[in-house]
Structures are given as structure tokens and as C-alpha cells.
């Protein structure tokens, strides 16, 4: 579904990502792991059009994503969350979700743009309720998103990413700052999201989570891919152990 072909990104001559290639299979959960500074977020930013690769190609369902702007990538059905929680300040949870519907409305009618959020667009509100139920967030629907506890804000971010019926979701360190109970719930959430037909690319530090959810794991270190395989394979790979624990 997503093909990354020898992508390189250099900042002022330093290669943050160096000829990385891998594929993400449709319907799978693929994890991207690696020590701090390995280039995981840089790679996500290139997929979503925030950064332009120095060389190489990124294809989504056969279409190149190189040179597309973030909103164009977003409307192809690729949605993401962010490493630090970045919810919209001053909007409720439901409004945060519905914002992701608006671009598609633009094509239909300018009149709908001028209506309040809770009028019209039955389909959008039904979808929002569906996702809020899926992630068990219904109780918080009308609260201001930025007033909620941190762990819940993280799940609202995921809910927002799912709003536009994405085929592909990029989750950037969703477990960061979560306690064990919250992480367990997150593992369930990610599996449920995959079961609704969304392909997931997960960037994560939390090994226990990665080993529990992933179908395939890609390991980066200093911008290069050092290993790729199933969780069992990765756990036994001497190169991965060396890069995490030092040789």
C-alpha cells in the first residue's frame, strides 16, 4: 500500500534519513522503531508532505506523494497524529473531529460552510459518534479538548485522524507519556482500528507495545534501516540489540 524507495533526507549535508526503503502491506500494523534521533519522525513528515525528501520516491497505492502539500496528502486518505499532542485549542472534542470533514464539504456547498457545526452533515456527526464510541470517548464529546487529561487527549488525536475515513493512519509515538493501563488500552485501540480496515504505521519507543501489536517491524538507526521483520525476528536480531543496548 505504501512503498518507500531509497528515500534520503539531508539537512545541511547531514543525512537524517539515508536510502531507506520498505513497504507497508495493506491491512497490516507496521512499526517503525529506533533510538532517539534515528529519523523516524523525519520519515513520517516526508510521507505527509511536511518535508520534501532530498531524493528517492514515496508511493501510496502506486501514486507518488513527492511534491504534494500536506492537505493534498490528507485528502488522499492518509491521516496522522503528532508526537506531542496537538489538538485545536478552543474547540470541543467533537469539533476537533468534525474539522477533518470540512475540506470535503467545500466541494459540495459553501452554504454548509456557513452553518454551525451541529447543523447539517448528518453523515459527519454519525461518523464522529461512531469513532467516539470505538475509542470510548463519548463522555468527553462536548468538553474542550485541551482541558482533558493527557492520556485522553492522545486518544482524541487518534480519533481525529480516523474521522476522514483514512485508509492509512500514521501514529507518531502514541504511547509517549502514557502509563501502563493507558498503554494497554492503546494496544486494544490500535488493533480495533486495524480491524476496521485501516492500515497503520506506528512510530513508537515503547517496546512492550510494539512487540504486542506489530505485524512487521522496521528498525532505523542513525537514518539507516538496520533490520526488518516480525517481532520475534527483531527481538533476536543482534544488530538491533546492539543499537539499543550498545555493543
Amino acid at each position, binding site marked *: 500500500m505504501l512503498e518507500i524507495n531509497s528515500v534520503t533526507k539531508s539537512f545541511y549535508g547531514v543525512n537524517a534519513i539515508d536510502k531507506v526503503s520498505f513497504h507497508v502491506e495493506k491491512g497490516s500494523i507496521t512499526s517503525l522503531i529506533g533510538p532517539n534521533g534515528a529519523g523516524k519522525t523525519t520519515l513520517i513528515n516526508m510521507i505527509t508532505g511536511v518535508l520534501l525528501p532530498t531524493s528517492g520516491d514515496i508511493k501510496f497505492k502506486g501514486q507518488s506523494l513527492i511534491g504534494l502539500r500536506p492537505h493534498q*496528502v490528507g485528502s488522499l486518505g492518509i491521516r496522522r497524529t503528532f508526537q506531542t499532542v496537538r489538538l485545536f485549542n*478552543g474547540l470541543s472534542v467533537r469539533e476537533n473531529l468534525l474539522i477533518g470533514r470540512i475540506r470535503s464539504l467545500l466541494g459540495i456547498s459553501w452554504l454548509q460552510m456557513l452553518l454551525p457545526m451541529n447543523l447539517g452533515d448528518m453523515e459527519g456527526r454519525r461518523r464522529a459518534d461512531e469513532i467516539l464510541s470505538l475509542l470510548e470517548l463519548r463522555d468527553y464529546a462536548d468538553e474542550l479538548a485541551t482541558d482533558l487529561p493527557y492520556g485522553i487527549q492522545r486518544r482524541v488525536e487518534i480519533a481525529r485522524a480516523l474521522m476522514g475515513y483514512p485508509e492509512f493512519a500514521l501514529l507518531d509515538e502514541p504511547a509517549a507519556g502514557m502509563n501502563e493501563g493507558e498503554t494497554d488500552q492503546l494496544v486494544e485501540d490500535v488493533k480495533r482500528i486495524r480491524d476496521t480496515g485501516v492500515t497503520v504505521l506506528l512510530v513508537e519507543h515503547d517496546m512492550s507495545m510494539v512487540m504486542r501489536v506489530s505485524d512487521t517491524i522496521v528498525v532505523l538507526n542513525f537514518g539507516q534501516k538496520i533490520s526488518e521483520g516480525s517481532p520475534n525476528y527483531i527481538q533476536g536480531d543482534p544488530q538491533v540489540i546492539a543499537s539499543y543496548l550498545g555493543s
Partner: protein
Amino acid sequence: MDILLSEPVQALVAINVLLTLSLLFPFAAGVWSLGLPGFMAVGAYLSTWLTMQMGWQVGPAIAVAGLAGAASTIPFALLTLRIRDIYLAIATLAAAELIVLFFSHFKPTGAVMGMTGMPYLEVHWLLILATGCVVASSLLYNSRFGKVLVAAGSDPMVAACHGLNMPTFQFASLAIGGLLAGMAGACFAHYYSFISPGNFGFHRTTDILMFLVVGGLTPLGAVLGAMILTTIPQVITSLEKWAPAMYGCIVLLMAVFRPAGLLPKNQLVKIFVTKKSDKNKSRRHLVSKDA
């Protein structure tokens, strides 16, 4: 209190409310444009020309002045593609000064001496226009479009990653600001029947900015800020020359005690939402009882 109901105060309040709303929309969207006096000057001079030279009625002239104000934001909009934040503020400030500088040297509009003799506009028309714009702005601010602006102001990159084309929304917010400023400029011209480049200086931006800071970044906040700060120096006329010092103290006190302004959130929505979630909570309570 009679002074509050006097016509000059009403006119000043109406014009300042329009100007504060014109600054609200770009600011809510995170576009820190300070081009307001430029758009205002465009509206004022165009409306003057239309009524005095072309024999238009005041009403249509004000409407066209608003549209011209919106059109004059296009070069400013192009700036937003290249620069943002404080750099955009400085660049738009300079661009607005250029517009005003043009009128200071343009002989047909009287250069620095300005123009006089425009048809007079009754105060009640100003009040009707201002009220209409307040209602329209509140509706727009709470519409989907307004929510996108708030999202853009909160985090434009995240909004873009959710499929929203940021430049179009930022351009639209600037154009709405230009429309309101253009109409305010035309109202200014027709109420005072005198305009000169000196009316559209930097002090205009700082005054309006202060109204918005004190009121808060919502339509009702903008209206409240403009009304309170416009009337304070008028109520205590003997203190009028102290107005700048009073404004300074008020802004400092606000910065310390209420940095987000008097009405930072939409109060109507807040009341509605609290009610609703209270209902939810009681329902949750019932559910747990059943279980």
C-alpha cells in the same frame, strides 16, 4: 450618562466596533496582519470619490468601499504565503503605511490636506450597519468556516494534515477583515465629512489592537473591548487628554489579571455546552446505579 448617548460617541463606538471585528478574523486564523489602516483608507477614499465625483448614493458607496477593502488585501495575502508571525506583522504594517503614503502625495485627493464635503450619514445608519456586522460576525465565527479559522490559528500544520487548504482560509480571513475595515473607513468619511492621511496612521492600529486585547479574541469580546475603551475617555471628558495613559494602565492590568481578555471563549456556547455535559454526567450516574 447622557454623554454615552450623544451622537458623536455612538458614531465612534460603531466605527471602532467595525474596525475591531476586522482585526478579529485574521487574528483568529493566526494571520497577524496589521494592514488595517491601509484597508480603511482605501474604503474611505473610494467611497468619497464615488459619492462626490460619480454621484452615487452613500449606501451603495459604502458597500463597494467594503469590497474594495477586501480586494486590497490581495497583496497582503500573497505576503502570508512567504512570511508569518511577527515578520508578517511588520511587513503588513509597512505595506499599510505605503497605501497611506500614496494618499499623502496624491494631489487629486488633496494630498496631506485631505478632502472634505462628503455627503453626511446619519448616526442611526452607522448603528444599524455595526449591529448587522456584529450579528453576521458572531454567526460566521460559530460556523464551520469560523471553526476552521480557530483551528488554523491554533495549529496550521495540523489543520493542513487534516486536508484543509490553509492558504485559502487565511486569504478568506484577511478578505473579511478588509471588507469590514473598508466599510468602517467609508463610515468614517461620511460621518465626519473630512478625511486626511493623518486619520489612517499607526495609532489607529494600536488603538484597535488594544480593544481586541482587552476584549478577547471572540466577536463578543471584540465588541465589548471596543465599546468599553471607546466610551471611558468620553465619560470623563476632563480626563480626555489622559486617555493614552489610561489605556496603557488598563492594558497592563489586563495583561496581569486577565491575559486572554474579558471574553476569551464564546460564552453562549460555553453555557450551552456545560448544560449538556451536566446532563451527560447525571446520565452516567444513572447508568452506574443500574449496574
